[in-house]
């Protein structure tokens, strides 16, 4: 199947009057977004995310390399009619009202008037702006964002580019947007999501790329990003001395408050109040510990693997490259 979006060795450098050397914004970005998926792009400020999106939309030209959007060039009007875009810093003329704005956006995208008569009220209902008949200047940030989302969906796009779509929305609004993205994926639409809210990316995306200093620092699925660390947390009701001694017996030598295994037993373990965090050699050692704790009359509340959040992983990746 042809990818919805594909870039190959994309480079972009900005030239300014003040600097002799061009400032690199993208350095050899190659990526592939499959149709019917939600793709997340994350990175620090100035990592090149917006530049990449602008190139994919034909708003900016790459210095070198190539980009394909739905099999065509991003600069091609026919390709752009099949996409929707919500920019991060959207500015709608203040005098416009929701309907006139959507009608204008629709006309620019070649949506015929009959379709618009049907789609505009539907979308306004969908984004919670039905019945709002006042100029955009009186809209809150959240309302403007909802209107922006409606215009991005107006032409029933095959690919949707969203730059910080939940910016300015309340928690309920954010959930609505997440649900919307999932429903779009369910009907085969492709979503290219650019957000600082890593928890959101983690929740909805199928593939994630971390962009750092204009380069792809890491690309994987959320499961790969948030894989286990190999450590476990064992929570007991009360960590008595007997319980701590039992744990030390299985894991290695006791150092009083915590347990510290030698090199041949475990790498690291420690108690924090009633929670033991440790990295077992293998599953057998984990089960042996639980058996020993139970025999020491410990009441175990939970045993869970320690996973990295996307944020922790992101900080690791970006921190390692700084």
């Amino acid at each position, binding site marked *: 199947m042809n990818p919805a979006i594909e870039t190959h060795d994309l480079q972009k450098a900005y030239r300014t009057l003040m600097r002799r050397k061009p400032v690199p914004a993208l350095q050899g970005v190659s990526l592939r977004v499959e149709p019917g998926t939600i793709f997340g792009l994350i990175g620090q400020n100035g990592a090149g995310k917006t530049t990449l999106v602008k190139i994919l939309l034909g708003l900016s030209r790459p210095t070198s390399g190539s980009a394909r959007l739905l099999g065509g060039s991003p600069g091609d*009007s026919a390709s752009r009619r099949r996409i929707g*875009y919500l920019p991060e810093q*959207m500015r709608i003329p203040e*005098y416009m009202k929701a309907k006139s704005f959507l009608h204008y956006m629709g006309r*620019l995208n*070649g949506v015929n008037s009959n379709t618009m008569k049907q789609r505009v009220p539907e979308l306004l209902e969908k984004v919670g702006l039905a019945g709002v008949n006042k100029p955009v200047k009186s809209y809150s940030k959240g309302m403007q964002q909802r209107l*922006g989302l409606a215009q991005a969906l107006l032409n029933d796009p095959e690919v949707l580019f969203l730059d910080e779509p939940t910016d300015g929305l309340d928690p309920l609004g954010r959930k609505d947007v997440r649900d919307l993205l999932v429903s779009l994926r369910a009907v085969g639409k492709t979503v290219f999501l650019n957000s600082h809210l890593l928890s959101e990316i983690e929740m909805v995306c199928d593939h994630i790329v971390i962009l750092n200093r204009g380069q792809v620092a890491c690309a994987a699925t959320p499961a790969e990003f948030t894989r286990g660390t190999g450590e476990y947390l064992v929570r007991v009701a009360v960590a008595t001395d007997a319980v701590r001694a039992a744990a030390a017996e299985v894991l290695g030598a006791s150092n009083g408050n915590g347990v510290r295994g030698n090199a041949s037993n475990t790498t690291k373990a420690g108690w924090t109040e009633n929670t033991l965090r440790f990295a077992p050699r293998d599953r057998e050692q984990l089960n042996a510990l639980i058996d020993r704790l139970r025999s020491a009359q410990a009441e175990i509340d939970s045993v869970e693997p320690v996973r990295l959040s996307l944020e922790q992983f992101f900080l690791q990746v970006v921190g390692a490259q700084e």
Partner: protein
Amino acid sequence: MLAAYFNSLHEAVNRRMALVLAGVAVLVAGTFWWIVQLKPLPDGTSMIFLGTNFLGPATLAVPSVFGAEIQQTGVLWLLLAIFAAAPLLTSALEKGWIELTLSKGTSRWKIFLGRFLGGVTLYFVTFLLATFPVALRLWWKTGVGPGPLAIALLIQTLSFAALLSVVALATLPQKGMALPVMAAVAVWFFSPSLARRQQSYYSFFTSHVSRGILEWIYRILPKCSELESMCFAYIRDGKIATWWPFWSTGIFAAAMLGLSLCLLQRKSF
């Protein structure tokens, strides 16, 4: 392109620019209506007065009234309309809005050209509103048609289009409308002195090379001053001696607009 064209007119109305121009146009038309007086004679003809000035019998005086309208409002309208129409072009390139419009399936040049034509329409319609009511009244009362005035309006509109094309080009490399408006007003301001360059500048530019440069500047830039003279000549005599200022201004406007659209197509946002 039509969507951008109608949107620019919608914007002109909603941002009050069109309303202010229309208001001034009504004021101008009302003033002319009031000062142009017709005195019917027993033989069925009419004598025309402009205020207290006797202009003569209708067939001779109507062209004078048209000439006075163009003379009194032409310059005012060029400047007012430049201030009113320039935001239609500069606002199209505002950050946050341009990303929305240019990411749609309409070519950049069509959007920009649509807005340019919206600006020209704003000028033409309001200028028509300022000058035509009196012309229609005179036509009704004297039978002398407003054809020459209509031609004069079209010639003046070309003059405006040339100035607006300067605005279009100056809008692209920077933000805001101060520089584009200043550039257009400067072109208009130097137009009369360039038309009389021998008298205006030859005493300062004595070398053959500098005078040659001056000649080329004159040839290239729009000839607003001469176009205005053309209007008077056409209204008065019904014919135009030379169309050179018209064609050269048209070529200037087309070239500047073409260059603007070309640069816009290539520009990264």
